C-alpha cells in the first residue's frame, strides 16, 4: 500500500481513512483482551445455553454480492462533479437515473425496487468500506466475513452472532441456494448448507420407515468421523424430515408471481421465504449472488452486464419482499460485497478493483428512502489510491442491525474493538 499522505482528513468522531486505521493498529493491545473475551464467550456458551431465552429477533438475510459490486454504478452519485469525468463511457448521466435524494440516483435497472424505497423499507449506505482495505478478492472477502481486523480470531461474524444465542433448530443458521457455506458462518456454531429445499432428501427413502433406516444408519456410521464430516452429516439428516415436508406442501401450492424465471437467486430467496413462513427456527440466512467482477463491458443504462445483473437483483428482491408480505416486518436483508470498483473506468469498458461501496438494506425495520453515510467526494484529492474512500465501516451497519433488530446486547462480542456509531438506518424492534 502507498503512504497515507493523500488521504482526506477524517471528520471528527467517525470516518474510516488510513489514518483511522493507523490509530486502530496502535490499539492492538486492547484488541487482544477483547479477543480473549470473545473466545471465552464462545467456549462457554453451551454451559449457559439452558439459561438463554429463545430468540425473538429478526431473521437476518445476508446477500453476498461476490466479485466486487459496483456501488457507484448502482446507487449513482450523478450529482458529483467528478463522476462523469472519471467514467465517460460507463457513467450514467442524471437524466437516465431514478432520482433518490441529494446527489444520488438509482440505476434504471433497479426500478422494481423503487416502490420499496418510496415505502421506506429500502435504504442505502454509501461509501462503506473495510478498516484494512485490500484489492484482492480473496483477502477482502475473507476479512469481510471474519470481520475482526487486528485480531487473530478465525471465526466468522455470523458464527459469533449465533454462538451467543441459545442453541436453536438445525435451521438456526443456513446457507441457502449454494453448496458451500459463507466464511461468515465459519466456526463452532453449526450451520446448515441447504442447496434447495425441494432437492433436500435421501433418494433411497421412499417412505418414513426407509427414511428412518437411512438416517439411523448414516448417523451411526459417522459417529467416529472427523468432527467436520460428522457435523455436516448430522445437520443433513436432521433437516431432511422438515425439507421433505415443505417440498410435499409446495407441490400443492403455486409459486408466487414476480420471481424471475431461471434465476438461482430467485430460487434461493424463495426458499428463504418458505423457511420464514414455515417457522422452522431460521435466524440467519446467507445467500450468494456473484459475478460482479466486471472488468469489462459494464454497459450503460439500457444494456450490458451491469444492467442485466442489477435487473435480476432488483426483480428478485422485489419478489422476495412481496412474497414475505407482512412477515417482512421481522426480516432484515443486508447486501455485502468484498469491495467496490475503481472510480475511473478502464480501457475495457469496465472498472478494476476498488474500495468504497454501497450497501443496501431491505426490511420492515429499515428506516428507508434515504442514502446514509458521509459522501467523501470523487475529486482527485478525495480518492484513496484512485478509489472511493470508505467513510463508514461496514461493521457499524451490521452492529446496528444486530443490536436494534437481532437482540445483540454488546456489539464488541461480535466485532471486537468496535466502538458503536449507529447511523439510524434501522429502527429498534418494537
Amino acid at each position, binding site marked *: *500500500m*502507498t503512504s497515507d499522505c493523500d488521504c482526506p482528513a477524517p471528520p471528527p468522531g467517525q470516518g474510516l481513512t488510513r489514518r483511522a486505521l493507523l490509530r486502530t493498529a496502535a490499539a492492538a493491545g486492547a484488541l487482544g483482551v477483547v479477543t480473549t473475551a470473545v473466545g471465552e464467550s464462545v467456549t462457554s456458551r453451551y454451559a449457559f445455553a439452558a439459561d438463554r431465552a429463545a430468540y425473538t429477533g429478526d431473521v437476518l438475510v445476508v446477500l453476498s454480492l*461476490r*466479485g466486487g459490486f459496483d456501488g457507484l454504478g448502482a446507487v449513482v452519485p450523478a450529482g458529483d462533479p467528478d463522476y462523469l469525468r472519471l467514467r465517460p463511457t460507463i457513467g450514467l448521466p442524471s437524466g437516465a437515473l431514478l432520482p433518490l435524494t441529494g446527489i444520488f440516483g438509482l440505476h434504471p435497472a433497479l426500478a422494481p425496487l423503487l416502490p420499496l424505497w418510496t415505502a421506506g423499507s429500502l435504504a442505502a449506505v454509501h461509501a462503506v468500506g473495510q478498516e484494512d482495505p*485490500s*484489492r*484482492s*478478492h*480473496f*483477502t477482502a472477502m475473507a476479512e469481510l466475513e471474519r470481520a475482526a481486523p487486528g485480531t487473530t480470531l478465525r471465526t466468522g461474524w455470523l458464527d459469533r452472532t449465533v454462538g451467543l444465542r441459545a442453541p436453536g433448530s438445525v435451521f438456526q443458521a443456513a*446457507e441457502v441456494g*449454494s*453448496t*458451500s*457455506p459463507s466464511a461468515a458462518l*465459519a466456526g463452532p456454531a453449526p450451520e*446448515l*448448507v*441447504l*442447496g434447495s429445499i425441494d*432437492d*433436500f*432428501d*435421501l*433418494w*433411497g427413502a421412499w417412505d418414513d420407515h426407509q427414511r428412518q*433406516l*437411512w438416517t*439411523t*444408519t*448414516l448417523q*451411526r*456410521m*459417522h*459417529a*467416529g*468421523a*472427523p468432527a*467436520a*464430516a*460428522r*457435523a*455436516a*452429516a448430522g*445437520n*443433513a439428516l436432521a*433437516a*431432511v424430515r422438515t425439507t421433505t415436508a415443505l417440498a410435499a406442501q409446495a407441490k400443492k401450492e403455486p409459486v408466487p408471481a414476480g420471481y424471475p424465471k431461471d434465476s438461482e437467486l430467485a430460487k434461493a430467496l424463495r426458499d428463504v421465504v418458505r423457511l420464514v413462513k414455515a417457522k422452522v427456527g431460521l435466524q440467519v440466512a446467507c445467500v450468494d449472488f*456473484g*459475478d460482479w*467482477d466486471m*472488468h*469489462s463491458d459494464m454497459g450503460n443504462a439500457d444494456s450490458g452486464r451491469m444492467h442485466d445483473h442489477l435487473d435480476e437483483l432488483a426483480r428478485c428482491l422485489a419478489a422476495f419482499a412481496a412474497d414475505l408480505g407482512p412477515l417482512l416486518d421481522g426480516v432484515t436483508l443486508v447486501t455485502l460485497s468484498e469491495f467496490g470498483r475503481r472510480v475511473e*473506468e*478502464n*480501457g*475495457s469498458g*469496465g472498472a*478494476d*478493483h476498488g474500495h468504497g461501496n454501497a450497501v443496501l438494506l431491505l426490511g420492515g425495520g429499515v428506516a428507508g428512502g434515504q442514502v446514509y453515510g458521509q459522501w467523501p467526494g470523487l475529486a482527485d484529492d478525495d480518492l484513496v489510491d484512485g478509489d472511493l474512500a470508505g467513510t463508514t465501516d461496514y461493521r457499524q451497519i451490521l452492529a446496528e442491525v444486530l443490536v436494534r433488530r437481532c437482540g445483540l446486547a454488546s456489539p464488541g462480542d461480535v466485532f471486537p474493538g468496535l466502538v458503536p456509531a449507529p447511523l439510524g438506518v434501522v429502527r429498534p424492534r418494537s
Partner: protein
Amino acid sequence: MPGLSSEADRLAHLLRRTTWGLTPDLVARATKLGRAAWLEQQLRPASVADREGDAVVDRFPTLALTSAQVRSRYSDGSWDVMFDLGKAALGRAAWSRRQLLEVMVDVWSNHLNVTCPSDNVWDNRHRYDADVIRRHALGRFADLLKAAITHPAMLTYLDNASSTKKAPNENLGRELLELHTVGVGAGYTEAEVRDSARILTGLTVDDDGAALYRPRWHWTGPVTVLGFSHPNASADGSGVVTAYLDHLARHPATARRIATLLARRFVSDTPPAGLVDRLAKAYTAADTAVAPVLRLLLTSPEFLASADAKQRRPLESVVATVRALGFAQARRGDDELEGLYWALESMGHQPLAWPSPDGYPDVATAWTSSAATLARWNVTLGIAAGWWPKGFAQANLAALLPRPRPATHGALVAALGRRLLQRPLPAAQVTAICSFLEVGTRTPVRADSAVVGWRLPYVAALILSSPVHLAR
C-alpha cells in the same frame, strides 16, 4: 488412525494420495512393481501404456480441434467443447492408468484456473488443457507459467486481451502475483501491481482467437516488481514478459507457495513447515522442475506419517466410487460422464468449473457442507443402483461379492467393505449396515436374502458413504 506398519499399508497410502481411487487391479500392479518403481513410472506418464485413457480421449474428437476449427464448426459462444472437456476430465480421472498425471492436471488446472465453462474461453479452453496444463504438468513450473499466462484462454479470462498502455487492465497482472506465483503475503505494493499489468500489455488475442503480440498496445518505460527491473523501452515487450515470468517462477516466495500447494495436496491441510522448507529448496535446486519435488514429497517421513489426514472432496469421492465399483466406461454415447458431470454440480465440484481464478480449495473445512454431503450419498446410491448417473459398462454388483459367499450378514458386509474400500470397514459400521437391512450380524445369508439381491446396491452405497471412503 492405523499405523503404516506394513509395506502393503504404505503402498495403499501412496495410492490413495496419488490416484483417483484404489481398485484391486491398481493395487495388484503397484504391488508387483513396488512403491518406488510404481512412483517412477507414474512420474514418466509416457512410459505407462494407457489403452483406457486413450479410449476416453477417442470418445471426444472435439478436443483435438484447433480454436479456429471450433470457431468454424460451432455457433459463436457454444459451450459444447467446454462440456466435452469437463466430461473427458472425469473419464480420464476414472479410467486412465496415468493416474498421477491426472491428479497433477487437476492440481495445476486449479492453481492456474480458467473457469470451464465460462463465456469467453469457449473456443480455446480445451487447447489450454492440452497445450498448457497437460504438456507441462510434470515438467518445469516456469514453462507451465509462461505457457499459461500467454495463452489466449488466460488472456481473455483475466481480461489482458483488452489491456492497453492507455488504460491497463490490472486483472491478470494482479492475479499473476497473488494467485499464480508469489502470493498475497509477498509484500508487493499497488505500484508493483500496476507495473505487473503494464509488463503484460501487448499480450492479446486476434480476431480468430489466436495469441497475438500487439506492440502498439504495450506500455513502455522502466518497471520494477519484487526485484525484477527492466528498462522496458521497446514496443515489443515480449522479451520482458518472458524474463518477468521466469523471475516470478524462480522467486523464493513462489518456491514456498508451490511447495505449500503440493504439501497441502499430498500431505495435510496444514503442512509441516520443515517439509515445506525442504520442498521449496528442492524446487529451486531443480530450477522449478516438478518431478523432483514430488519425489521428495512422496518419500518423505511427513508423507508416511500423514495417513488419512486428507479428506476426499466430492469430485475425488465420486470418481473413487466409480473406480471402487469397477464400473467401465460406456461403449457408446457419453451418458455416464454426462450424468457424473451434472451430479457433481449438486456438490459444487464439477471438474474445472470453480467460478473464480483461485481454483477449488483443497482443505476439508471448505467442503463440510450438509448439502454436498446429502448429494454425495444420493449420487453414490444412484450410481450403485444404476438409476443415475447411468450408462456404465460392466456395472455388475454381484461380481463384487466374495466367493465362496460368507455365511452371515456381518461377514458378507465386512467382505464387501474390504473389497470396495481396500481396507477393513470398522465393526461398528458393519453392525450399523446390518441394522439397515433389519438383520443381525450373525443372521445367515441365504440365496434369497435381500443383501445379495435387491438390497445389494444399497449396501454398496452405504459402504461407499462411510467416512472411511472419504479419507484420502
